[in-house]
């Protein structure tokens, strides 16, 4: 899209029209894989939207009280209860991983194979640590008596249900992303993309940034509301 | 030619069928005749469109049938014609929609003077509740529901004591009075529908839905369930009697309130009470009544010791052996007039014994001696 805008200085709307009415490809210079990933992410957006809208509906219609997030998601450090500490760290890690991913894509453009490999590996490791912390968070909640079907806080049982379901679904996305990153990273190192180019790194990056973005919404709706 | 003719015949045939067939809306028994009017408006607009389009198609097929070497008229677009057609369609849509929305507005806004009747749907029968003398319904909660408190009225709520409870699948209403039906369900989705009233609305567990109407004619109307609610959905019927004010008063005076229902209950022996709990827990009362009304299954009132005709024509005496078989293998012998919808139950020997005692207790001594 960026290139097209450069070719057609008339403006965004006109260049869009030109793109869509041209033959062969709508998105100029965009490899098939990247177009597919965009469309997949659009579809995936609808999945998460449905989850979040269901969550809002349930939360607003349930008769039972909803627990205070800053109390539920607290962490006791040195005898002090710090609300949302763990989540803040998790969010920080995930956003950092997006940064390393962006650097990896940049290295890909420059053809720096080693840079791509190590940065993607770093991204995967950050993702893995996120999943690990999520597992810790879950087991902590479960040990405090919050289950998917009920809880011992006299709060709506849907609190646990929707929390475990949505964060679990996001966690699956992160886990899949970690595997995806690792596979691509090692394939890069093996030189599978030397001839084809490093488009695949950018495609992987798209997915990873999406997962990160979804987390921002989950964070806002579950922990700050 | 032949194809065009058949298409034309299909169109003409449809119109003829419309005028000759015996099926139309049932005679309306409420003030909702505007619903019917809206249907007729839509019907006419759509009917005319159908005939014109179908006839044009037949005509065009015949008129422009294939001839080798002939060229069609090359005309990629005809903007004025398309604009006209779009405009006409839009007008037609507005003419259909506007009255519909006006009547809908009427449908959802209940007049202030409407009397309230609560309907509770459950698999697969209807129960009704009137607010009683104080005009206020007692509050309810689902946890309280059992065979002794079918609506789950909260104990200690004074408004609940005088509520009139009707568990016989029939409801009487006076004509010419606005009625607001409050719809509840204790288990799954149902839909309270009286075809001759026109109105219907789903009943959703955990919610109270509503509609209103004003009966205009005296009569006996079918109540149907219009939302698939399980295997006996088709059997979930009731009767609505539209009475004159006087008949209605008469009927009303014979109904029992919740307080009377509690007071009139004879104390039960412990084993009988235990049997009632077994029946409650296993949901027997969903299909078997204790008041003589036949719902999905036969009533348990005065059943014990009787000789009853089965679907295959044989006579069977209702005794412990028959009942035990019917619990384990319900479709083996079906009482004539009922559908084989019951599922098999596995009960412990203790529970079965208590249940037998409870069932026997539902047959009064006089009945039992008479049957013998």
């Amino acid at each position, binding site marked *: 899209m960026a290139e097209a805008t450069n070719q057609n200085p008339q403006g965004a709307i006109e260049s869009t029209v030109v793109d*869509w*009415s041209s*033959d*062969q490809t709508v*998105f100029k210079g965009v490899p*098939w894989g990247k*177009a597919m990933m965009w469309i*997949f992410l659009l*579809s995936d957006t*609808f999945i998460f939207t*449905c989850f979040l809208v*269901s969550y809002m509906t*349930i939360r607003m219609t349930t008769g039972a009280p909803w627990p205070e997030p800053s109390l539920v998601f607290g962490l006791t450090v040195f005898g002090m209860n710090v609300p949302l500490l763990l989540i803040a760290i998790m969010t920080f890690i995930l956003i950092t991983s997006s940064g390393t991913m962006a650097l990896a894509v940049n290295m890909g453009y420059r053809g720096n194979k080693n840079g791509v490999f190590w940065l993607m590996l770093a991204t995967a490791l950050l993702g893995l640590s996120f999943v690990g912390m999520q597992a810790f968070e879950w087991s902590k909640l479960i040990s405090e008596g919050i289950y998917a079907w009920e809880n011992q806080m006299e709060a*709506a*049982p*849907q609190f646990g*249900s929707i929390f475990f*379901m949505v964060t679990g679904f996001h966690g699956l996305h992160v886990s899949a992303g970690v595997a995806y990153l690792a596979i691509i990273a090692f394939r890069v190192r093996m030189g599978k993309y030397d001839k084809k180019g490093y488009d695949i790194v950018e495609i992987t990056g798209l997915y990873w940034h999406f997962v990160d973005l979804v987390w921002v919404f989950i964070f806002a709706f579950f922990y700050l509301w | 030619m032949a*194809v065009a003719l058949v298409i034309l015949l*299909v169109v003409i045939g*449809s119109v003829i*069928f419309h005028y000759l067939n*015996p099926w*139309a809306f*049932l005679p309306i028994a409420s003030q909702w005749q505007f619903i019917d009017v809206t*249907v007729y408006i839509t019907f006419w607009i759509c009917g005319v*469109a159908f005939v014109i*389009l179908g006839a044009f198609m037949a005509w*065009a097929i015949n008129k422009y049938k*294939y001839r080798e070497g002939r*060229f*069609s008229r090359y005309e*990629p677009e*005809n903007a004025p014609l398309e604009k006209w*057609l779009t405009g006409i369609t839009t007008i037609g849509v507005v003419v259909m*929609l506007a009255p519909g*929305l006006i009547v809908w507005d009427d449908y*959802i806004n209940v007049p202030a003077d409407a009397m309230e009747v609560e309907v509770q749907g459950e698999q697969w029968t209807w129960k009704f509740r009137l607010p009683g003398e104080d005009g206020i319904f007692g509050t309810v909660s689902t946890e309280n529901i059992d065979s002794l408190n079918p609506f789950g009225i909260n104990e200690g709520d004074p408004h609940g004591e005088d509520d009139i409870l009707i568990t016989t699948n029939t409801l009487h209403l006076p004509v010419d009075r606005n009625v607001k039906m409050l*719809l509840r369900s204790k*288990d799954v*989705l149902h*839909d309270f529908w009286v075809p001759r009233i026109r109105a219907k*609305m789903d009943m*959703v*567990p955990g919610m109270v*839905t509503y509609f209103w109407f004003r009966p205009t004619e005296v009569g006996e109307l079918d109540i*149907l369930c*219009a939302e*698939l609610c*399980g*295997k006996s*959905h*088709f059997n979930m019927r009731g009767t609505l009697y539209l009475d004159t004010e006087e008949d209605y008063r008469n009927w009303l005076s014979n109904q029992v309130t919740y307080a009377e229902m509690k007071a009139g209950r004879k104390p039960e022996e412990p084993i009988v009470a235990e049997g009632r709990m077994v029946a409650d827990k*296993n*949901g*027997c*009362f*969903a299909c078997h009544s204790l008041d003589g009304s036949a719902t999905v299954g036969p009533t348990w009132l005065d059943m014990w010791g009787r000789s009853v005709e089965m679907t295959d024509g044989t006579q069977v005496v209702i005794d412990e052996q028959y009942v035990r078989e019917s619990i384990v293998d319900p*479709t083996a012998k079906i009482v004539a007039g009922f*559908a084989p919808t019951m599922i098999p139950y596995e009960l412990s020997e203790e529970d079965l014994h208590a249940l037998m005692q409870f069932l026997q207790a539902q047959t009064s001594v006089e009945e039992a001696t008479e049957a013998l």
Partner: protein
Amino acid sequence: MAQAEIPYQESMELSHPHSWWTKYWFSQDHKVIAVQYGITAIAVGLVALVLSDLMRIQIAFPEWEIMSPDFYYQAITMHGMIMVIYLLTAFLLGAFGNFCIPLMCGARDMAFPFVNMLSYHVYLLSVLILLVGYFVPGGPTGAGWTLYPPQTITAGTPGNEWGITTMLASLAVFIVAFTMGGLNYITTVLQARTRGMTLMRMPLTVWGIFMATFLGLLAFPALFVSAIMMLLDKWIGTSFFMPAIVSLGEHLEYSGGQPLLFQHLFWFFGHPEVYIVALPAFGVVSDIISVNARKNIFGYRLMVWALVAIGILSFIVWAHHMFVAGMHPFFGFFFATTTLIIAVPTAIKVYNWILTLWRANVRLTVPMLYALSFVLTFILGGITGLFLGNVIIDVPLSDTYFVVAHFHMVMGVAPILVIFGGIYHWYPKITGRMLNDRIGRVHFWITFLGTYIIYFPMHYLGFIGTPRRYFDNLGVSDFYPMSAHYLNDVITIVALVVGASQLLYIYNLVYSYFRGEKASPNPWGAASLEWCTPQTPPEHGNWGDTLPTVHRWAYDYSVPGHDKDFIAQNEPQRSPA
């Protein structure tokens, strides 16, 4: 625009088959995958057809006692779900989509042949999981194809344990299959067209499939999410859709859930689903009518924009399925209005099909007969939709046989007629042989007139109030008079004849494959690109050494001053000099 370069399309790497398995079973050729999709969909559709005939016998002759209520409710559920998802969606997108998109866009194959192959096999898996429902304890679910909770998972419904689980699992797997296929279709249409093939030169078939795929990718997520939530409700005891209830006397552990939330999610998927089926049918019909009328489709640009408009609008009309479901009554105003607005672009499409016949040269081939009968059926199904979409009229008519007649006309018979017509139209390109004309005509007349006799009078049962989904109407009553008994007898007999006559079509498919008349490369004289392949049937890779170049739209029929009455899309424009 700097063009003429085709970096991917021209030199696309194709995985050529090495053995029988990779040629016919794990093939990555879009044409083979299309046939696989088609055969599987027809096979599972036959199951649904048999179920429907059994149900018809029960409705007309309950005294024969051929089935239990459990079986009946399981049959309505399986019939509905199979027809909507596993036959119509799979056939129109999986079979027609796979076959038409690359050929009509001038691509060598789908953008991702391997994912495409996977898509079919995941679809096959979903079909198998669905059918497993008949072998698990309790049988398949009998909750109706809408699967409304709470009844789906409470004891009064057949198959409330394992049947509903296999059903939801199968749907989730189907959605995965659909997503894999759908990403292919969209990417191919957007990024893999040949030289000169602009979007506004694409045949309407491709446009319809393209829009429908978009709808599917955005609508199926809602079904996916609701399937997950219902499975959790069933198996780990969450209460998403389950309020506190007393099921058959037993107090269940649920509390505080929202049955209506499921309905909103379901119909957010379910309404676009109607158009997922309808839009490809619209496209195919447009092409068949245009080819056989020897005339360009009337108002092509408007047809495209109508498809796009219908697609977008279909996302904001879903709650017209819920007018009497107990949602907030003010929604009624909004959704009735949007629903009737969608009638305008739909009506435009109907006008344009009919106006294509006007001053044309109409050739009544068998595909054309199917297409014309589609138009008539669709008009009837469309205008009855105007009844049900108008909120107050929906009140007396919803959940009656009027609804059954309406959706069978518009979403059952109409797209099925298109499928018959479409197969007939492309069969020569798929196999290199023509289908038998005589059998085709016999099958057409039985099917068209038969279904009309079945469904047209059924609307009137809805007026007297005969409710749908009744296992047995239990004798004569106000809403089910003796005349309705007779009508149902007639309908059942006709339905059995129509059901049996479908074997004719299948016989025709098999017979013609071996014995059919050899087809020329372009037997219908069609202008669109799929008829210009160097071989018939096209080999793997479709276009030989070089991709075709497109010079015109797909509808150059009867162009004045030309010697033939059609000009193929790849024929160059006459130079002005």
